[in-house]
């Protein structure tokens, strides 16, 4: 018998109902994630409206090239996980597993790059509360920018880390043929989660790295 009927929980009538329920549950969870990060973006908006110059100055301290590369890495990883899901839906196994490993590796490289960013900022004295050596009239409100920067990227990196673990688990399960063209719900939900992580970063990128670059 296929994996489909073995994976049907007793409270559901059929696989379609189960799949529908899981997808809706995941999307509802993604909505909560959007609001969870949204508070930080709301705080960002309010502070930036009040201190536009300090936010531009703070943003110029960030590493735009590295930020752009990180964005490209995450966008590519999103495509890779989508292709992995496609492959499983078409009955594939090996390619899908390797695509998932690739996604996780891209996520990991994102974290490593971010680690380098944090380290150079530490050396520059840009971390409020730990090592902040900036002087001048904008130094106070610029701390708001850097607080938000660390809160946003910190929570985002936490999500990336969880996502990497999740993707590796999914890669293992895919390799062991736990999914099939009929049953792939956990993989689908993990992919959705990874796309959300990507979407959050799509907004982080211009708000953190691109402010005041032209001036």
């Amino acid at each position, binding site marked *: 018998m296929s994996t*489909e009927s073995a994976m049907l929980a007793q409270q559901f*009538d*059929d*696989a*379609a*109902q189960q*799949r*529908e329920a899981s*997808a*809706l549950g995941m*999307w*509802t969870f*993604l*909505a*909560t*994630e*959007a*609001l969870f990060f*949204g*508070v930080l*973006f*709301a705080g960002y*908006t*309010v502070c930036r*409206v*009040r201190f536009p110059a300090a936010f531009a100055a703070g943003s110029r301290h960030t590493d*735009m090239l590295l930020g*752009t590369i990180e*964005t*490209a890495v995450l*966008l*590519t990883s*999103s*495509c890779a*996980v*989508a*292709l992995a*899901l*496609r492959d499983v*839906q*078409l009955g594939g196994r090996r390619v899908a597993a390797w695509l998932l490993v690739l996604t996780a590796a891209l996520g990991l490289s994102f974290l490593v790059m971010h680690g380098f960013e944090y380290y150079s900022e530490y050396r520059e004295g840009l971390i409020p509360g730990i090592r902040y050596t900036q002087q001048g009239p904008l130094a106070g409100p610029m701390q708001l920018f850097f607080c938000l920067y660390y809160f946003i990227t910190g929570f985002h990196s936490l999500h990336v880390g969880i996502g990497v673990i999740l993707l590796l688990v999914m890669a293992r399960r895919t390799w062991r043929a736990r999914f099939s*063209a*009929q049953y792939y719900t956990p993989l689908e939900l993990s*992919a*959705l989660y990874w*796309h959300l992580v*990507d*979407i959050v970063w*799509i*907004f982080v*990128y*211009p*708000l953190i*790295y*691109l*402010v005041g*670059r*032209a*001036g």
Partner: protein
Amino acid sequence: MNAPTTSASPPSLRLHLIVLAALLALLLTSAGCALLPLGVFNTLSALGISVIKTLLVMAFFMRLRRGPPLLRIAAAVGFAWLAVLIGMTVADVLTRVVLPSPW
């Protein structure tokens, strides 16, 4: 409830790669726009491009384009509520009358 158990066939490899190329092109566009002195349009273009990128990811990678409408609603509601939070909070900050401190 009586939807067919197998979902529609997944989008093609070609479509995935086209979307990825579009996303990367948009990324470079937004980086390039940020370097030009456009005034307020710097922010607007950056956010506009982010919105387009998000819509691309949601429509194609997350498969909302072909998915059940309910999921599109669920996705939209989260963003709508976020807009309420940001909108009304910023509205307060923007319309405050600054009272100079008496000392």
